[in-house]
């Protein structure tokens, strides 16, 4: 790899470590002295955003030729581009949407079970004066383009809120899982011996756990806040990454360029950070893209069985509510499912395209 001076003047690691030390200091201050400087989410972003910018975006920027090559190869997959487009749309919805829609928790019993625009549905209303059931025809209105649920909450607003939650969970849990998997994989392969043995036996144990059962168990016993769910999915989902990274590192270790830098007297740290990790990164990016849908689905399934965070409106929660009124208001169950399906589909398209683009053996 070419050494890049660039905008950091070759002191990238130094600047990054400095930033991390400042963050650690604030965190310790938060923990022991002052209460709640930042939310947990903010810490998460403050840790991973610089990490991605310094070691993900910046090398791509510095190495424009390679970036162009990857992009050209990804672009040839039409489905991958469509997937990427949809994901960008979702991100925009997640960031801007909550400012444009109504409050997703606003209850309005007068307008409950309104169908989406262009649909109509029959509703039976109990008339207090006559004591009879009156069947009325309800039309969807533009005020609630996606309809309302059984408490009169606006479904569009709920879905927009769900987009934000799902993307947050997908991104965060995957980053945590990938981070742990990368460290365990590289350490295990590079150190070998009893460290490798112990780490891989532990990975095997984690792998044989019935994943969803474990998730339900932990979330039920130890709390179901969104933050905790993300952490649990991240802390249990790293096994696949660790295995793949380990085997990739093992095969890299015997390659000539590693041997060459070793015989030139490079330190372990240099080999790991300058040669091993950059070379497994493409694999890691592919795993990350392909594991985001699984994470999103896991959270949706948790919310669906009633174990999600009850304070946030996620797609799974809407689906959970919709299941009760399948016969009276079908759209409540249909809409979040379609969003979930399209999101997972988009990530699968993109992941497939990236995998082919980053795999030098594949011919598109």
């Amino acid at each position, binding site marked *: 790899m070419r050494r890049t001076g660039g905008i950091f003047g070759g002191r990238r690691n130094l600047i990054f470590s400095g930033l991390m030390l400042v963050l650690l200091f604030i965190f310790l201050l938060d923990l022991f002295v002052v209460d709640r400087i930042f939310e947990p989410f903010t810490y998460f972003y403050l840790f991973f955003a610089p990490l991605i910018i310094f070691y993900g975006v910046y090398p791509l920027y510095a190495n424009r030729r390679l970036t162009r090559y990857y992009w050209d190869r990804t672009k040839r997959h039409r489905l991958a581009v469509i997937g990427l487009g949809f994901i960008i749309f979702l991100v925009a919805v997640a960031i801007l949407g909550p400012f444009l829609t109504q409050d997703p928790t606003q209850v309005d019993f007068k307008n409950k079970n309104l169908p989406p625009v262009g649909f109509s549905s029959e509703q039976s209303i109990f008339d207090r004066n006559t004591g009879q059931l009156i069947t009325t025809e309800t039309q969807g209105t533009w005020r609630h383009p996606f309809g309302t649920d059984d408490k009169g909450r606006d479904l569009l607003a709920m879905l927009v809120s769900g987009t934000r939650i799902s993307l947050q969970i997908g991104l965060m849990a995957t980053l945590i899982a990938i981070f742990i998997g990368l460290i365990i994989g590289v350490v295990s392969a590079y150190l070998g011996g009893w460290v490798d043995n112990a780490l891989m036996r532990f990975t095997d144990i984690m792998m044989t756990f019935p994943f969803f059962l474990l998730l339900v168990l932990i979330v*039920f016993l130890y709390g179901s806040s969104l933050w905790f769910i993300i952490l649990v999915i991240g802390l249990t989902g790293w096994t696949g990454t660790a295995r793949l990274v380990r085997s990739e590192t093992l095969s890299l270790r015997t390659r000539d360029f590693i041997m060459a830098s070793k015989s030139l007297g490079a330190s372990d740290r240099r080999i790991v950070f300058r040669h091993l990790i950059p070379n497994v990164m493409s694999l890691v990016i592919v795993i990350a893209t392909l594991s985001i849908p699984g994470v999103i689905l896991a959270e949706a399934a948790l919310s669906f069985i009633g174990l999600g965070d009850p304070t946030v409106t996620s797609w799974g929660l809407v*689906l959970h509510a919709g299941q009760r009124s*399948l016969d009276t208001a*079908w759209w409540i169950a249909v809409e979040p*499912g379609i969003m979930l399906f399209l999101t997972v589909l988009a990530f699968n398209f993109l992941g497939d395209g990236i995998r082919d683009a980053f795999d030098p053996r594949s011919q598109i």
Partner: protein
Amino acid sequence: MKRGGLQNYIIRRLLYAFLIAFGVVTITFILLRIGPSSPADKYLANMSARTQDPAKVIAAVEARYGLDKPIYEQYFNYLVNLARGDWGWSFSTSLPVIELIKRHWIYSFQLILLSMLFASSLGLLIGIYSAVKQYTKVDYIATLFSFTGISIPNFWLGIMLIMVFSVWLGWFKTYYDTGLPVFSLANLKALILPVITLGTGMMAGHTRYARSATLDNLRKDFVKTARAKGLPEYIVIGKHVLRNAILPIITIIMFDMAGVVFGGAYLTEIIFGIPGLGQISFNAIFANDYPVVITITLIGAMVVLLTNLATDIVYTWLDPRIRYD
């Protein structure tokens, strides 16, 4: 190959599986027993218990089942009992755990078996056919279909099927009738929707793997040779391509079987109200019935470990080039 080599390999793998299972039991036990609630809590909901002092009731129940001892002692006792073949006592159903499993495993088994049959037979057919017809319309439709199947959340698919076929059309019951005898024709009808729910994702996966495995082998030289010899196409595909493609396909089917037992089958059982292992383990988690939860986790882990081992053994049988010694 030498028989002894394979035997030693199997013994080593079984010992290892045993070790992993031990780890799984330990972690589950710790997670459950250091948790904030106790299996004795359910006795508080009991009417007769409510008139007494709740702390006393809990203490009495905990003393009866040995839950008041230190955790390491409970853990040790549990392991000793497990080694003796005593799987413990289910607090929430007041049955021995083994009895509970015996009553319910068949429901999970028939659901998973039928789904596997459905998914692998259709998946393989579509996958192989679409590989043979690569770059035709059939192939594109099959690819799009498999992407759809992989991406569709199976619990949502289940709800949609219930909505359309049970609520609107009224063809099926919205709930699984537990009175039906297992493996009967009436039961088969009741299982159609659950099997589609559980099987669609798997089928899509099998389609993709079958397609790529077949394509890999279609490009090989021996296929050209076979064609050059003038063999009819069905023999080229059936005898030369498929024989080589079957190995990766078997892997994914076995892998799915292990994964599905405690993945999708869970949610499917919950949605359709099928009283299988998934359903009872959920109830057990909510009741903090830890012997049941540990047992089912252990069963799940053992299924994964044993299918992995079985896959490796099937390999040596399907492909004599593979050896483990």
